[in-house]
């Protein structure tokens, strides 16, 4: 497959590539023409060290040619073309176009220079368009946020070794969050094609091994036809529920060298897999349980994967007039719907049937866990409650990373995509509802609606405490922000504040109002994933906002440069409580437990001395920035200015000095 020079010897001159061991990887074939004898001389250790040893050296004597060298001397020099009319990368771009991949997020790297050039000059930098990211973790997290908002994956590419190591944590978040991202890494498979220096530590036998525990599938194609089939397969696997990232290792030779016979290459047709629907008899059994139940409760997490998900769930809940608890993994259920009881989880103790749909950690949802010296737990549900699961989570698991949570006993486990199963389930429920049950459902719904109203009033009352305080309360910030965006087509695409206040106070009523959380809890998610979601929202004209933590921001601040460079409108509020606050609280608990000092838990948990000036940072990256804002009365005007900036098509950042969360 290779066209890279391989005359049976190391290319001369490569040892000149650098005493620092980091030669320009772009010079692999540059000095092909030097003599073999010269290569032998320069490849000796003495010669290699000349530039750094400082000692005069004796030029080694040329070895007496053996039969092979003599034969090589007698052969004509290898062909050394200086231009080509096609490259494997061109074909790869053709494949991307058939897959309708809009964006290629990346930080440039020589191991995919062939594909990079092809995207620009063969593909016209369109489908995919390059999104330049200062860090691979940013690129993958952008893909995570983008896919959840747009409903399809983007692609990212990186060095298959060092870049993939940067990308890996974000891939883990996407894995835990069940989000498809097409990850690719450059590699040089054939050892004798690698230049000395960087190309060796940047190559691997099996680059994908690093991330195999948290991708759904991977491959390393060795031909262009192989690439086409694997790329289409990868896309299909990634986007079939349960969704997850996939990884392709791309050989540099395959990207760079001419296509031998384009006519012989074929791009397979992508046929999306129909998401699996739960078995009909099982759904009928579930419907009968739900209709007969006195207090059924629906728990949902990553149910809505399309715009149709939320209306279907609403239809089911309204038919039953039953309580819905949202774990907020997706935009599943309207926040102000009378049946939304997400902030009244105590109702689980009264449930006789619990239906959990696409819930990852069901045991955690159904248990009170006590983080004490002796850890203990107790179920939140009564022993007679029947528990039913519906989802794809159990269809694909791996062993090493433990994101699946503790084993939860259930009474009926229906394997199937919840959104795809909802129409049948709704039909089965409706078929069983007679007038008597309908009357009972209405009475139940009225009680739940009254309780919901009380919950909302309680939230408003709670929000008044510390209303004028500085540092500003999270409730005040959220109320001020909502006031500025409520009349726009807004989309909240990230929070690092423990969710509560926006979902307690705001009216989340459309599919794009929310897109879930990090998945794996890996820090550094909120800013880049929000930007990815904003990239998706841009074409729909939505106003994208996010409230990120200061600690989260500090992992990936250069995301702002990508926002400015690509003119992606996003209002990003740094919830600046000047701490890694969750850990601050954990450490306080440790100190209290050990009883030997409780006043120094700010050590290692806070971000002070100095405080970070996030607005100035933003300006340094070319982004509109204001702050630090300390006075709550300054919030409204600042938000108004920032929203105007975002509506003009630019990103904006506000640094708001906050009380905890």
């Amino acid at each position, binding site marked *: 497959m290779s066209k890279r020079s391989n005359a049976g010897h190391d290319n001369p001159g490569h040892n000149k590539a650098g005493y620092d061991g980091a030669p320009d990887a772009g010079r692999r074939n540059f000095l092909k023409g030097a003599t073999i004898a010269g290569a032998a001389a320069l490849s000796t250790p003495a010669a290699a060290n000349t530039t750094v040893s400082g000692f005069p050296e004796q030029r080694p004597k040329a070895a007496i040619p053996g039969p092979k060298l003599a034969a090589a001397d007698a052969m004509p020099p290898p062909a050394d073309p200086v231009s080509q009319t096609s490259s494997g990368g061109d074909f790869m771009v053709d494949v991307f176009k058939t897959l309708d991949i809009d964006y290629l997020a990346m930080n440039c790297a020589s191991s995919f220079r062939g594909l990079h050039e092809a995207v620009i000059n063969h593909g016209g930098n369109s489908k995919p368009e390059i999104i330049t990211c200062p860090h691979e973790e940013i690129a993958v997290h952008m893909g995570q946020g983008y896919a959840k908002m747009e409903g399809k994956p983007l692609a990212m590419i990186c060095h298959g070794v060092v870049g993939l190591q940067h990308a890996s944590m974000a891939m883990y978040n996407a894995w835990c969050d069940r989000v498809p991202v097409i990850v690719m890494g450059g590699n040089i498979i054939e050892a004798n094609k690698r230049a000395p220096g960087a190309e060796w530590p940047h190559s691997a036998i099996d680059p994908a091994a690093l991330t195999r525990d948290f991708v759904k599938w991977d491959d390393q194609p060795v031909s262009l036809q192989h690439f086409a089939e694997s790329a289409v397969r990868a896309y299909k696997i990634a986007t079939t529920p349960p969704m997850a990232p996939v990884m392709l290792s791309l050989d540099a030779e395959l990207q760079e060298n001419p296509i031998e016979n384009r006519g012989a290459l074929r791009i397979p047709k992508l046929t999306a897999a129909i998401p699996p629907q739960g078995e009909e008899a099982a759904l009928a059994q579930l419907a009968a349980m739900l209709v007969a139940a006195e207090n059924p409760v629906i728990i949902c997490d990553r149910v809505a994967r399309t715009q149709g998900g939320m209306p279907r769930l609403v239809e089911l809940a309204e038919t039953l007039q039953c309580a819905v608890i949202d774990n907020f993994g997706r935009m599943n259920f309207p926040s102000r719907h009378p049946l939304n009881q997400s902030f009244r989880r105590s109702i689980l103790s009264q449930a006789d049937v619990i239906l959990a749909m696409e819930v990852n950690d069901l045991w955690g949802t159904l248990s009170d866990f006590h983080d004490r010296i002796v850890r203990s737990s107790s179920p939140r549900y009564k022993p007679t409650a029947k528990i039913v699961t519906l989802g794809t989570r159990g269809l694909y698991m791996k062993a090493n990373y433990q994101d699946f949570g503790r084993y939860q006993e259930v009474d009926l486990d229906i394997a199937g995509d919840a959104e795809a199963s909802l129409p049948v389930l709704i039909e089965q429920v409706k078929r069983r509802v007679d007038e008597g049950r309908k009357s009972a459902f209405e009475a139940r719904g009225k009680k739940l609606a009254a309780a919901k109203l009380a919950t909302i009033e309680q939230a408003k009352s709670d929000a008044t*405490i510390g209303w004028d305080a500085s540092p500003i309360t999270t409730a005040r910030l959220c109320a001020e922000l909502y006031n500025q965006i409520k009349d726009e087509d807004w989309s909240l695409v990230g929070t690092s504040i423990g969710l509560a206040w926006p979902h307690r106070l705001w009216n989340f009523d459309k599919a794009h109002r929310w897109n879930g959380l990090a998945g794996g809890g890996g820090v550094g998610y909120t800013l880049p994933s929000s930007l990815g979601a904003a990239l998706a929202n841009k074409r729909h004209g939505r106003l994208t906002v996010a409230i990120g933590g200061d600690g989260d921001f500090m992992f990936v601040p250069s995301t702002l440069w990508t926002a400015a460079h690509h003119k992606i409108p996003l209002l990003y509020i740094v919830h600046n409580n000047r701490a890694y606050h969750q850990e601050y609280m954990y450490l306080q608990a440790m100190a209290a437990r050990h009883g030997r000092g409780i*006043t120094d838990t700010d050590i290692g948990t806070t971000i002070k001395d100095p405080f970070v000036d996030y607005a100035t940072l933003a300006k340094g990256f070319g982004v509109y920035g204001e702050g630090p804002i300390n006075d709550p009365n300054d919030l409204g005007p600042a938000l108004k200015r920032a929203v105007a900036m975002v509506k003009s098509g630019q990103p904006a950042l506000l640094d708001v000095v906050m009380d905890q969360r």
Partner: protein
Amino acid sequence: MMIRQYATRPGTIRAIAAASVLFAVVGTSGAARAEDPPGDAANGKRLYLADGCFECHGRAGQGGRFNYLTPALAQEALPVDSFIAFLREAPNDMPSFSAAVLSDKDAADIHAFLQSLPGPRPAKDIPLLNQ
């Protein structure tokens, strides 16, 4: 910033409230007594910040979020002796604070500070909370 993510657990809050009632009824020996002089709210504020109470309950006593919603403490309703008893053997994820790190006097001062904080006010008076 959050490393671990759990579902909100208002049930825990109820458990704390229930435990509070228990302590209010039973009381414990060694706690400040109702007839003791009122605590020093100014010192209580200093301790509330220095001892990390604000981390979970907010500088204004507005409550917050740990692995679940944490209760508001402004206008704390517990009598001081029950409050201290609660701190000594707190339930669930609430840390317990021994006398070695928080004396009865200091705890009473914190209690006085919490009682000095303004509690909730009518939400209808704040237009931003009615949209």
